[in-house]
């Protein structure tokens, strides 16, 4: 029996090694509420520091550049990123692209780095519903701000179309947008995180050599990039839908 236990211990570690939850690190009280600094805060700070340092370096380097010169190595990379974002936005929004390229570029880079940060060993910030819901709520506010700004009272009367009886259905349709967008991003990244935690926590040691690399490519890189693209694409589609002149 003891021999059997030893063998099973060698082959498969117990489920106590599986860990993909958000952990509280530091507890504090604010307005009578118990609040926590969690691992999500730490990983979101790492992602933000990475991006801020990158952008400061870009800013410093680009300020010194002469526009008449032939661009060098680093400038080419930065221009590639900017051109990719500009191309993506203008392909989807047409004449409105200029107003929204900044915002779409910002959330694109942030969500992309957040999603693939599982590769660097930190828990992806987007695998926490507290990160994806605000992102989707920003989109929700932008949709309706632009709707009211562009259509004036038409933004409200469009809820009564085709007949006033449809008001509740139209309202549910509007509220479902941020919920479905945030849940889509959240559960995609969470499922990747859980899968990787199961692979690392439950499989025997000789399966963990080399094989997780392919899973990382699929769950972190591929799914992360697709979900980033889909989130930005849906944001643009919804906003552009409100800005079109019928």
């Amino acid at each position: 029996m003891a021999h059997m236990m030893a063998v099973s211990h060698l082959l498969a570690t117990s489920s106590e090694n599986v860990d993909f939850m958000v952990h509280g690190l530091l507890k504090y009280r604010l307005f009578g509420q118990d609040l926590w600094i969690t691992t999500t805060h730490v990983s979101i700070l790492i992602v933000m520091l990475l991006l801020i340092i990158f952008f400061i370096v870009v800013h410093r380097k680009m300020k010194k550049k002469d526009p008449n010169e032939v661009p060098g190595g680093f400038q080419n990379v930065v221009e590639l990123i900017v051109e990719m974002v500009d191309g993506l936005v203008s392909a989807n929004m047409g004449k409105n692209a200029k107003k929204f390229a900044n915002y779409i570029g910002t959330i694109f880079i942030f969500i992309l780095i957040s999603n693939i940060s599982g590769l660097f060993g930190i828990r992806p910030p987007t695998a926490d519903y507290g990160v994806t819901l605000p992102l989707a709520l920003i989109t929700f506010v932008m949709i309706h701000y632009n709707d009211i700004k562009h259509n004036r009272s038409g933004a409200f009367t469009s809820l009564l179309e085709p007949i006033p009886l449809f008001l509740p259905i139209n309202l549910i349709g509007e509220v479902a947008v941020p919920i479905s967008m945030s849940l889509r991003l959240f559960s995609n990244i969470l499922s990747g995180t859980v899968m990787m935690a199961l692979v690392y926590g439950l499989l025997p040691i000789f399966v963990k050599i080399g094989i997780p690399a392919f899973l990382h490519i699929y769950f972190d890189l591929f799914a992360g990039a697709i979900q980033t693209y889909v989130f930005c694409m849906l944001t643009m589609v919804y906003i552009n839908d409100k800005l079109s002149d019928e």
Partner: protein
Amino acid sequence: MNITGHDLILACSAIGAGLAVIAGIGPGVGQGYAAGAAAAAVGRNPGAKGDITSTMLLGQAVAETTGLYGLLIAFLLLFVQPLT
């Protein structure tokens, strides 16, 4: 062996989680249909491959959402255990 109410709820939660991920059938069929239609479209018009691929990925990601809801329910039942 005594089975307490807590054990029973855990066991039923595990069964419920298994039932919830049956929701994955729908997105599987839907994504396959979208990929098949995209392959046919590329066959007819190979020049529009980029546009077709991006439209297909967007549609597939939207179709995936319902399956992910099922997955989310399974995760909630297994790890958050709201019923215990």
